[in-house]
């Protein structure tokens, strides 16, 4: 039988975001993989050139829904380096804490997705339930479950007080216990081990050659972690190990992420214990002197790189960034070679490609009455209409009514 070509994507139930793969098959075996990317290209680099540094902070934070803190930290680090501004030590610790909490939520999310892709939905339910612990914590500290908006040029926007520090330590205890349970499953549960072993293999040599980053690279025995190699924020003060594995397959990637979580808890405990007193931000100039800087950050998925060139005005001359998935996608074709068609979803999911999902209802604990209230999408809309009327004299009520009648709301 000759070669059969199967398109997967750009819209496909097995993919969580639009990419297009053209898989060539000989029987069940994959012989070649073609890839088409760019469906999510939003022109952020061009947009950044037309905005001031301050306006760019929320823009760059929205590069990714999951690694939002990673991108805004990488960007602010670059701008701060050009401006020659040293942020307070306490701000560095807070950036580290948020960064590690982000890693916890991202890795637990991945664990659930991986479980789902191999038909182990109990793992999905469990790990996403536990993920809520860290999501609630992030919401408490930053006000948001995602897009934390913690970073400002020159430091961070919110402090983490004693009470919140206690909550972090308590949550870390819970999460650590749960992670131990998952490590136990991953190392003892035969079905899971057999399903993931030998799937999506990539050798250490290929990982180095293709520039694969993060847990995907570390699962093939490459000891590369920006937190250790090129320390930023408060990582130089932290004691932790870089977790590697030599399985080189999807199983290795699962083990690395789980064991990495244990190191993250170590970092969180140290950061909370040793956080220095002082300010959380310094004054940052509107205009940034001409110069350039390359900044790197170890996001949950791997190395995140930002480059900023300043021209002395309040807007950057050029902003360039590369998210870890971009580096890792180049290795997916190699991983899929000689695998079965049925292994495509989990192999792609194993590099943890990034997707965002932020639509939600808000549940607020009403402090004065002690009651739980549900705020619906419609309530939120009405609140924002009132806000614009009150604060800016703009009335969107008519427009809102029109949309409602058309059924587009």
């Amino acid at each position, binding site marked *: 039988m000759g070669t059969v070509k199967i398109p997967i994507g750009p819209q496909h139930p097995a993919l969580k975001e639009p990419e297009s793969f053209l898989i060539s098959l000989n029987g069940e075996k994959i012989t070649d993989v*073609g*890839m*088409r*990317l*760019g469906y999510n*290209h939003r*022109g952020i*680099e*061009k947009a950044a050139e037309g905005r001031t540094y301050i306006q760019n902070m929320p823009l760059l934070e929205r590069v990714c829904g999951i690694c939002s803190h990673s991108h805004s930290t990488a960007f602010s680090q670059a701008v701060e*380096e050009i401006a020659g501004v040293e942020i307070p030590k306490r701000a560095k610790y807070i950036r580290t804490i948020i960064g590690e909490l982000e890693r916890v939520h991202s890795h637990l999310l991945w664990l659930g997705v991986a479980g789902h892709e191999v038909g182990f939905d109990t793992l999905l339910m469990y790990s996403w339930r536990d993920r809520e612990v860290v999501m609630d914590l992030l919401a408490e500290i930053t006000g948001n479950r995602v897009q934390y908006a913690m970073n400002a040029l020159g430091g961070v926007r919110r402090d983490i007080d004693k009470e919140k520090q206690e909550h972090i330590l308590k949550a870390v205890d819970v999460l650590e216990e749960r992670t131990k349970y998952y490590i136990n499953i991953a190392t003892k549960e035969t079905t899971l081990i057999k399903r993931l072993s030998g799937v999506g293999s990539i050798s250490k040599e290929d990982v*180095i*050659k*293709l*520039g694969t980053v993060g847990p995907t690279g570390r699962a093939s025995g490459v*000891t*590369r972690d*920006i937190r*250790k*190699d*090129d320390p930023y924020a408060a990582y130089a003060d932290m004691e932790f190990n870089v977790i590697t594995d030599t399985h080189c397959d999807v199983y290795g990637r699962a083990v690395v992420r789980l064991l990495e979580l244990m190191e993250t808890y170590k970092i969180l405990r140290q950061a909370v214990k040793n956080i220095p007193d002082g300010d959380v931000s310094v004054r940052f100039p509107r205009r940034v002197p001409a110069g*350039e*800087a*390359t900044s*790197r950050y170890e996001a949950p998925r791997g*190395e995140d*790189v930002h*480059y900023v*060139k300043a021209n002395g005005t309040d807007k950057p001359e*050029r902003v*360039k*960034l*590369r998210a870890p998935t*971009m*580096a890792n*996608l*180049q290795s997916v074709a190699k991983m899929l070679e000689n695998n079965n068609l049925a292994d495509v979803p989990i192999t792609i999911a194993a590099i943890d490609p990034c997707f965002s999902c932020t639509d939600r209802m808000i549940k607020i604990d009403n402090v004065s009455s002690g009651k739980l209230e549900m705020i619906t999408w419609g309530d939120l809309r009405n609140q924002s209409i009132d806000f614009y009327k009150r604060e800016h004299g703009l009335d969107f009520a008519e427009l809102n009514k029109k949309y409602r009648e058309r059924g587009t709301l």
Partner: protein
Amino acid sequence: MTELSRENNIKDQLLVKFKFLGDKIVVKRDRRISADVDLLNFREVFSYLVNDMGFLRICMITGFDEGENFAAKYHLTDDKGIVFDLKTYIPKTNPVIKTVSDIISGGLLYERELVDMFGIKVEGLPEGERYPLPDGWPEGQYPLRKDWNKDMLKD
């Protein structure tokens, strides 16, 4: 400045091999080195960095529209955490640069970005899908050129 000994060693080693780099090579801080090189010598310096100095990984390529010319900055890293930014200049009259995919793999997508976003021709780039613009994107529209704006897309 003993802290910067690793970075200065790399700089000295390069200066011995490529005298023309002169003051174009700068150690900016710990773990950050950058150099400017003209297009003629670019490939030679680039392959020396990759093959002899251990800068085995390409992080990304930043393209620039600098008015009279284009430029491309190749961000290379080694496994000790050092980033080497090598910049070269490409004339607008003949915007062509040779691919580096024969020297280092893993940079294909970044080279395709130069093609789509700046209209820089990359010679020797293997055949493949374009990135990142859609298939129906109009000819001659290069979004990251400084004279481009979104209104130019309208008929």
